[in-house]
């Protein structure tokens, strides 16, 4: 697979394979269940959670509605602090800029902090094409890289792997990338983490170039923020001489003070901790502390098209906490790879088809990769109404309509008779054939109802001939989820 999602089958095909994989389902179920319980407890500690969530959504809305203002302000502040700002309209341009910057240092190796943005643009492959080796240093990313695999979760990219598989990957592959795994490595997590420590330390101590993303970019001060746990982030942000950060334009927040909202929302939502072990904040290159050169690459790559959609725009509030993945019954069964992009789960189902458009079969099927149960909305710390955007995107796939593509206003044709439509319908059937998932989907039954009888052409019509539109059940999704242990007892 070598780190690219290109050529992935559409969601329903990938999901059908994934759901038949017992080991994958077991790994995922264990992991998502664990984190769900912990997260609820961490959130319950803050009595003002709802107010924080409202503020988190509002700050992002303010930012997005005035994004040009805040980006130019951030650019000015970063420049004043001694950094260099680059703008990249798409993935190719971002990759070109980063490759050039690395080349200019004369180095052929870089250490990387886990970054959704660089995963999205396929930076590692682009660097490899230029003869530059990028070492992923987050433990889960390392597992993925050594396994020649793809990330399947935003926060825990190797969530689909259990400890036995990780041991085998380390034992077999570490030597190809540097220091080999210790003899007789067991599958104890502590021992595996130690093997990663030894393997990567060599890289950290010698690396001259670090590449990162950022969780936040403060417009007012030009401060970048990276939130992490292992210390690999601190290593990459501190020890190299040159630091290159690739940051989506939606990561900007207006003021220093705004961090007080997100530093409370993010750790509790993502890892269920009061605070993640390490957070690094830097404003320009340090005089004597940290890299001497700092480059910020501001990435569009479809974000402005997403911004142009007044319903879909809210997806840009996302702070990548991954909480929506962990509560999603479809994600839990299908796994992250089925979504065919760096962004899996509910957020991927709305973000990817907006960033990339819905021209391909996999992207057109993504808005259907959901049961519309609403759990993702309830859990989202910035209150993105994911089901609302899903329904909106379904309409776009089936009916066409105005959209922004590559910065140009266009009118999309309905996908009638197109492969995308068939893919979409197969995805709908995939969810709807599973009674548990279907029953879970009633929160939005009223909203989607209009789509069912009138607007579904072709196979959809046949579907509505033989099935009644489901009635809104007396039992809420949450009750159902708890009663049935996430659908297992309901045969979902």
């Amino acid at each position, binding site marked *: 697979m070598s780190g690219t999602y290109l050529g992935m089958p559409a969601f329903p095909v990938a999901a059908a394979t994934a759901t038949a994989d017992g080991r994958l389902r077991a*790994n995922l179920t264990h992991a998502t269940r664990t984190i769900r319980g912990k997260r609820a407890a961490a959130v319950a500690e803050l009595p*003002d959670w709802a*107010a924080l969530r409202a*503020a988190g959504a*509002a700050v992002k809305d*303010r930012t997005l*509605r*005035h*994004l*040009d203002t*805040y*980006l130019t302000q951030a650019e000015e502040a970063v420049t004043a*602090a001694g950094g260099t700002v680059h*703008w990249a*309209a798409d993935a190719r*341009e971002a990759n070109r800029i980063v490759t050039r910057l690395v080349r200019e240092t004369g180095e052929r190796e870089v250490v990387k902090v886990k970054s959704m943005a660089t995963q999205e643009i396929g930076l590692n492959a682009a660097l490899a094409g230029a003869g530059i080796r990028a070492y992923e240093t*987050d433990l889960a990313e390392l*597992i993925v890289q050594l396994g020649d695999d793809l990330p399947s979760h935003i926060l*825990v990219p190797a*969530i689909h792997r259990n*400890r036995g598989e990780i041991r085998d990957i380390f034992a077999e592959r570490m030597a190809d990338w540097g220091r080999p795994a210790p003899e007789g490595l067991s599958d104890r*997590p502590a021992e*595996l*983490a*130690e093997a990663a*420590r030894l393997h*990567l330390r060599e890289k950290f*101590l*010698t690396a001259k170039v670090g590449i990162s993303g950022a969780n936040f970019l403060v417009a007012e*001060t030009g*401060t970048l923020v990276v939130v992490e*746990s*292992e*210390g690999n982030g*601190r290593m990459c942000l501190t020890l190299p001489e040159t630091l290159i950060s690739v940051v989506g334009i939606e990561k900007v927040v*207006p003021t220093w*003070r705004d961090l007080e*909202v997100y530093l409370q929302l993010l750790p509790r939502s993502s*890892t269920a*901790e*009061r*605070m993640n*072990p*390490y*957070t*690094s*904040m*830097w*404003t320009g290159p*340090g005089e*004597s*502390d*940290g890299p001497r050169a700092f480059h910020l690459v501001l990435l*569009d790559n479809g974000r*402005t*098209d997403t*911004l*142009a959609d007044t319903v879909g725009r809210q997806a840009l509030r996302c702070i990548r906490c991954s909480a929506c993945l962990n509560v999603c019954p479809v994600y839990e069964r299908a796994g992250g790879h089925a979504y065919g992009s760096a962004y899996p789960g509910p957020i991927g189902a709305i973000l990817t088809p907006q960033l990339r458009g819905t021209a391909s079969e996999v992207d057109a099927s993504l808005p259907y990769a959901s049961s519309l149960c609403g759990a993702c909305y309830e859990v989202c710390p910035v209150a993105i109404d994911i089901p609302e955007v899903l329904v909106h995107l379904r309409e776009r796939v089936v009916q066409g309509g105005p959209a*922004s593509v590559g*910065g140009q206003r266009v009118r999309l044709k309905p996908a009638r008779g197109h492969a995308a439509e068939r893919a979409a319908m197969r995805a709908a059937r995939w969810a709807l054939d599973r009674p548990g998932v279907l029953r879970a989907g009633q929160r939005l039954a009223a909203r989607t109802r209009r789509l069912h009888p009138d607007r579904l052409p072709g196979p959809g019509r046949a579907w509505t001939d033989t099935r009644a539109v489901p009635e809104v059940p007396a039992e809420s999704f949450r009750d159902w989820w708890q009663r049935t242990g996430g659908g297992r007892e309901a045969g979902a």
Partner: protein
Amino acid sequence: MSSRDLVLGRIRRALADVPRGERPEDVPVPRDYLATHSPADAVELLAENLADYRAVVHRADAAGLPGLVARLLAARDAQTVVVPPGLPEEWLAATNAARVADTADLTPRRLDAVDSVVTGCAVAVAETGTLVLDGSPDQGRRRITLVPDHHVCVVRVPEQVVDSVPQALARLVPTRPLTWISGPSATSDIELDRVEGVHGPRTLEVVLLRE
């Protein structure tokens, strides 16, 4: 056209629905969340939350601190200790571990051979069990609290302790390089089991210093 102009142009077109003349402040941000969750005793809560994330918490007064630091270093058999330039001399008065100065020529590799580091702290957050370092002379550069495997951080209580994240941000200077530390390095990447110690110091000891 430069990519900068291209992207900014796309943004302005994308925001055609935003009324001309709307200013950022016109988009309301409700700030009715709490500035503090008002713990009864912030220092106690800090100690509790630090311990909950597997930091080892000690207490000392000014007279007892040098002896305590010496014992903590001796317990780890630390031969060498890296010291920020502005660390109060008396903190290390009782240890015979060899000092390594935090100077520009201290390479990562040499730092990797150092056993321990002792620093002060800028702010500690009780509600989250977090220490914030801001590169002040008693804390040194970011790398010295990262590469050695054992970090002893001295927090002056109660004056360096705040209740909450909002209070901490208000005290910090954004232009300084800031490191927030909540417990030792940890990962949950293997089946979501928490394992301490991947790349940062595996042992974090916090001394709550009452003067």
